[in-house]
């Protein structure tokens, strides 16, 4: 009976007792401790692809060897354990000094005072090198009267919605592989045509947990904005474009070409690599998976921008998600942490070029100088996916929604309900009521720390 309480209630006390006065890294001293005369910086990174962990280990070691003042201790944390581990450590006052944080979470972290601003810690020339459109993602005001500051250094961006498809199966179904669909209303028919035996025509998100974030790009595609106002004063998901969006997902689900139960989570492109799907909507990170795990399939698979509501592919279809490095507001080694971030992400070209090469050019740079360096690289120029995704998807990409995920989940639940039989009208009306209740109960009005750098309804 007490498990329920201990799950949350014991966190503040229990974690402090368990972790004691040490760092969150067992066996390591705290952030203000020292190791061989060096000050220790605890760096927690969420676990991504294996090649990325190898890159992190290699360059953390290089940083430690490059100077004698600081010792960075890298801890790679599995994604499914990340949130509770970080929260428990922060509750106990043992959070890491530097950690990975996604663009969408920066705003709420700033609102609670969890992040240290970088403007006084990292040289201006390195902050100025950030692409201006990406710099907005990491900028926020800690209070309405505070000045706009940068709270994280962008690492990479990756569009969350790309349409990957099998050219050979297109041909076999009598479709032109050089002319993938461009409009919403074309996709259900094509998915149905591509269904052959155990190979399904299309895979995409079909449950609220996945739809909550993967549908952001199409919400923008339909309406040009999110259903929540920029000042977070109210939400209206019942407008006609969102009804069209919910019905679009329903048409996919009922087309006969899509499995009734997703073959994988939205972020996992494995079924396409395994040959179980003819088309899969997922993020650009699939390119890395394809090259690492399914190299024999690479010639058979092409990428295209996601279909648009009216066929206009200059409308956004994808959000630009991705990762940054931030410094904990309570860290006692903020200057060293800033030096480390500068070494890894901000200064010179070598470290980041090594990263993007290792990614198989499947990630996209956030610094103007790195974008130029990649454009000049012959292997990047020859990459079949890179130019298309850069020019046709990233170019029109939009930032992720930064309001609490509960609101996105309400919207996603409405879409899922519509897919599974409820009318879009009714489902979205319920979502509207729930979203506005959440806004009122949690007093969200005026708490968006990034409202000054966002455009919205």
């Amino acid at each position, binding site marked *: 009976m007490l498990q*329920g309480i201990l799950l949350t209630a014991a966190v503040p006390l229990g974690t402090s007792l368990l972790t004691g006065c040490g760092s969150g890294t067992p066996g390591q001293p705290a952030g203000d401790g020292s190791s061989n005369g060096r000050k220790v910086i605890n760096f927690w990174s969420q676990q991504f692809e294996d090649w990325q962990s190898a890159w992190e280990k290699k360059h953390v070691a290089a940083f430690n060897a490059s100077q004698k003042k600081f010792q960075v201790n890298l801890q790679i944390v599995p994604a499914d354990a990340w949130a509770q581990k970080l*929260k428990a450590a922060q509750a106990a*006052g043992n959070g890491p000094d530097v950690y990975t944080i996604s663009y969408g979470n920066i705003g709420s972290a700033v609102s609670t005072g969890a992040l240290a601003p970088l403007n006084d810690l990292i040289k201006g020339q390195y902050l100025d090198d950030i692409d201006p459109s990406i710099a907005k993602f990491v900028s926020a005001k800690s209070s309405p009267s505070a000045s706009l500051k940068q709270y994280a250094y962008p690492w990479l961006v990756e569009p969350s919605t790309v349409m990957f498809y099998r050219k050979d199966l297109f041909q076999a179904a009598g479709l032109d592989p050089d002319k993938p669909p461009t409009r919403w209303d074309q996709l259900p028919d094509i998915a149905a045509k591509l269904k052959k035996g155990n190979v399904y025509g299309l895979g995409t998100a079909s449950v609220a947990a996945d739809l909550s974030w993967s549908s952001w790009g199409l919400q923008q595609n339909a309406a040009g904005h999110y259903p929540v106002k920029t000042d977070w004063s109210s939400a209206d998901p019942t407008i006609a474009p969102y009804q069209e969006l919910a019905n679009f997902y329903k048409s996919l689900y009922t087309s006969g070409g899509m499995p009734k139960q997703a073959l994988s989570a939205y972020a996992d492109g494995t079924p396409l690599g395994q040959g179980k799907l003819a088309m899969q909507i997922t993020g650009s990170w699939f390119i890395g998976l394809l090259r690492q795990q399914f190299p024999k399939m690479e010639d058979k698979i092409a990428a295209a921008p996601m279909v648009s509501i009216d066929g206009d592919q200059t409308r956004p279809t994808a959000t630009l998600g991705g990762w940054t490095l931030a410094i904990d507001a309570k860290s006692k080694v903020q200057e060293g942490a800033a030096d480390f971030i500068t070494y890894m992400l901000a200064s010179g070209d070598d470290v980041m070029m090594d990263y993007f090469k290792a990614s198989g050019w499947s990630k996209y740079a956030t610094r103007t100088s790195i974008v130029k360096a990649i454009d000049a690289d012959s292997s990047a120029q020859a990459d079949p996916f890179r130019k298309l995704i850069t020019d046709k998807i990233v170019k029109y990409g939009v930032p992720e929604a930064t309001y609490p995920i509960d609101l996105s989940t309400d919207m996603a639940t409405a879409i899922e309900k519509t897919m599974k039989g409820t009318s879009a009208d009714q489902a979205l009306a319920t979502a509207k009521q729930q979203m506005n209740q959440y806004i009122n109960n949690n007093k969200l009005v005026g708490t968006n720390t990034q409202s000054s750098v966002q455009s919205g309804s």
Partner: protein
Amino acid sequence: MTTSNTDAGVAATNALSSTGAASAAPVEARTTDRTPRTKRHRHPRRDNLVAYLMLAPMVVLLIIFVIIPFINAGYLSFFNWSFYKPSEFVGFRNYVNVLEDPDFLGSIGRGLYFAAMVVPTGMILAFVFANVVKGLGKKLSGFVKTSVYIPTIISGVIASIIFVVIYDYSGGILNWFLGLFGVQPIAWLADPSIALPALAVPAVWIGFGITALIMLAGMLDIPDSYYEAASLDGAGWFKQMLFITIPSLKNVILYLLIAGFTAAIQEINLPLVMTQGGPLNSTLLPNLYLFNHFTQDTYQGMPIAGALLLFIVLGAISAAIFSILNSDKAVDG
């Protein structure tokens, strides 16, 4: 029904001591007769001191890991708490927010429905199984008992993954098997009407072994003389089960009901790994609701308030079961 191993051990001890009271009582009576009253109470203070010393470690641990966090949780539930900025007192707002959230109330109702599927099913299967094992030879029953206990020691996460593979839509064993009879693939974990029952199956499977062994322990402690006397009076198998076995297992059943209900309502591994609470929240059980809010919310007051409300719900359920099934001392004839 998912009971922890520690709970199981305590239950087995309770079951044995309670149902075994009939045989133990005469021994105790004999000992008491031979022990002079004055000698027994010669060093009461020393006895008390030893008892307190033996209790102390558990009391200290309970204070550190249960009582203080509990009081701290009650205090924090009245604040917006974010670890970095000073907490803001919000009165009962966190409680109001939780109670106004249809997802929380829905998760409580769903938890009760889930427990109602899992606990009685598990107990009936365990009862039947224990009856069968009781009649087996020593070697065979040892093998069967060990086999049936294995799911209990498998991690809930591993069990969840095993059943995800079984329920997989396009390559799962279950749909493959049904396909042999021409049945189209079923979306076991994506259809809101069947996802929760689909989760109940592994829950029963995980808890079956320990429930069955506790039942068996209780049954083995019922004196054979009861059955012999009943046979002489002409009672058949069914009447013996109804008037001897079940009443003698009353305390065991009470324990299993309370432990089973509280564990089933609090199930988190299965929905977290298998469905993440979907589809359409149809598998969002209370602890997963709290876990999601703990990991996603900007402030922590609301999940703590929710945890305390869940505590009240679980306490009320336990009290209700106690009052319905009075926990008397064992029936010793």
